[in-house]
């Protein structure tokens, strides 16, 4: 009976997972061509038509990376009189404030300082001083590609577009975790593209998402939003029928956590934030008036957390079972090597094998496509292999803890 229940759950989950994968792939290839043609024609515009842009850089104890972040902004290929940078020191207790003083005479840069109150308060504080056409944010652990802003700005030619998201990549990925995250972020570039085609972007990433200034006038400033203000603002925009676009070749490079502990903390904050925001915005789930976001993307995101945990749980369960069996065997007859049996008869030919095969094939297609979007040299890399091998084992760790925290009302911290 238990076996039947778990088997049914597995197939239902597999069906939905496959449905979502097929849906995303169909969507991508449905819109791709039209989108690429449109992008190509949008290049080469008159300088006088560039909108004014303000970039907020909220900093808190970021003495080591803040300079690089600001220099990358100054190197942006964008008319200088149209671009201003607001650095908000959110009550740093290290040397950050002193270090950024070197820009005090730079006309493009304005330095602001306030008492520590969290990232969203720093953003809102800077917004008070800003009245440019567009406004964006760049975390002090990220750097921009020189052409990123120009590419993003063209998207605002469409009057309906209220915000534009870039493509985020890992800055100089190192080590096992760095490579896994590199592949993960590249995978994310595909998803963001598909979500934008579906008009279902529900995150405007902290690094360099650009908004029309009017967005904040209409729906208010940033909120604490369980430490994931970049997700909440996007969901609030979607709820107010504001369109969010994506420019996949506007590249932003962000420094990835290098240790498992910092990665765990970051992801715990993200997943916890997602679940809490999803609960806050639950009225958008399965509501046709919120389009693909309400009907597919948000439910799929929630479902992916649960299904990842379910599969991880059943994997651990079956590992423990075979381990117990192995221990029993060794304790009964000692260790003996049986050799491999390559008889076709013993190949697993369950339904799940064939479906997993198709699902993995789809994942390969997504990886190859996303690497194309990310302008990577190789269509498939060592990092993709590491990602496929290890990500499904890493993610359930913070996902499980995030669910635990939500259920038992434990709050996550930024650091």
């Amino acid at each position, binding site marked *: 009976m238990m076996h039947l229940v778990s088997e049914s759950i597995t197939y239902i989950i597999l069906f939905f997972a496959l*449905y979502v994968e097929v849906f995303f792939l169909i969507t991508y290839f*449905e819109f791709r061509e039209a989108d690429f043609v449109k992008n190509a024609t949008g290049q080469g515009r008159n300088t006088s038509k560039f909108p004014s842009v303000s970039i907020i850089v909220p900093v808190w104890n970021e003495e080591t990376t803040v300079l690089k972040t600001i220099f990358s902004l100054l190197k942006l290929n964008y008319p200088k009189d149209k671009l201003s940078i607001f650095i908000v020191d959110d009550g740093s207790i290290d040397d950050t404030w002193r270090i950024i003083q070197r820009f005090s005479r730079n006309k493009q840069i304005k330095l602001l300082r306030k008492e520590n109150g969290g990232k969203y308060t720093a953003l809102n504080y800077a917004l008070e001083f800003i009245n440019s056409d567009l406004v964006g944010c760049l975390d002090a652990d990220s750097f921009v590609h020189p052409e990123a802003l120009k590419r993003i700005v063209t998207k605002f030619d469409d009057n309906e577009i209220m915000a534009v998201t870039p493509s985020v990549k890992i800055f100089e990925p190192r080590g096992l975790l760095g490579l896994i995250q590199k592949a993960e972020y590249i995978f994310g570039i595909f998803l963001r593209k598909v979500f934008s085609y579906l*008009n279902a972007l529900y995150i405007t990433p902290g690094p360099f998402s650009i908004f029309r200034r009017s967005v904040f006038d209409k729906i208010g400033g940033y909120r604490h939003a369980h430490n994931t203000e970049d997700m909440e603002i996007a969901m609030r925009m979607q709820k107010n029928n504001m369109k969010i676009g994506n420019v996949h070749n506007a590249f932003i490079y962000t420094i990835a956590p290098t240790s498992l502990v910092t990665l765990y903390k970051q992801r715990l904050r993200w997943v916890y934030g997602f679940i809490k925001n999803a609960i806050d915005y639950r009225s958008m789930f399965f509501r046709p008036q919120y*389009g693909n976001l309400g*009907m597919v993307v948000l439910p799929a995101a929630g479902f992916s957390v649960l299904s990842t945990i379910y599969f991880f749980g059943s994997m651990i369960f079956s590992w423990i079972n075979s381990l117990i069996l192995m221990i029993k065997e060794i304790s009964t007859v000692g260790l003996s090597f049986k050799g491999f049996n390559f008889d076709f*008869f*013993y190949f697993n030919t369950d*339904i799940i094998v*064939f479906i997993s095969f198709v699902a993995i094939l789809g994942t390969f297609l997504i990886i190859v496509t996303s690497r194309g979007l990310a302008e990577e040299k190789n269509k498939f890399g060592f990092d993709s292999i590491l990602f496929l091998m290890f990500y499904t084992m890493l993610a359930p760790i913070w996902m499980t803890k995030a669910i635990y925290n939500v259920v038992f009302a434990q709050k996550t911290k930024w650091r």
Partner: protein
Amino acid sequence: MEISWKKYAYTFLITAVIFITAIYLSNYFSQKKINEIKNIESRIAVDILASETQFSLLSELSCRDIGSSFLSKELAILGDKLAYTEQNRGSDDAEVLNLKKYYSLLQIKDFLLMQKVKERCGSNQANNGLSVMYFYSNEGDCSDCEKEGFVLTKLRSDYPELRVYSFDYNLDLSTLQTLVSVYNIENKLPAILINDKVYYGFKSVDDMKKALPMLKEIDKQKAKEEALKAKQSSSTKSI
């Protein structure tokens, strides 16, 4: 916000087609495996029938003519494959039950044939008359059956000449029930029948060797052969 219900439906269709194909493929291969088992069973049946016929045809058959091929070699392979199938399809699967019944009958026939050989030619023929009859249960009432299974698998791989006949005690097969009553095997599993003597409860590899002294003989012989080999190789090296 616009929704393309048509696309939702198409996606559902594609996903369903993938699922149905997967189910079809899985069934196809599963049927292929069942057919393979059936083929092995019929091959064994022919083997046994051939040996039996040979045996009765030439009542004067010289014991020397009974070679190693007299008894079917595929019985153990069949047992493994059947156990694997049972694990995958479940022990209540009708097809599995049928195959298992047939397998049990073949084992009994093979056992009887071996007994006949043993009677006429002594235990030195065919497979040294080495055989074990093992009764188990899959119904969760036999906690030691799993362990006993490991022991017998180990013995079978160490001593290919040992014939292990395994029977599901609860299998609904009248011939098997007759066998159980002939040897008076009680429902205290695992039960092992060696040379007309029934042993109940878990028996380790050492216990089994005690009950089957022939295995110890084989061990000794192997050790001797190995020592001889070692000697030979060391003498060739010194040359």
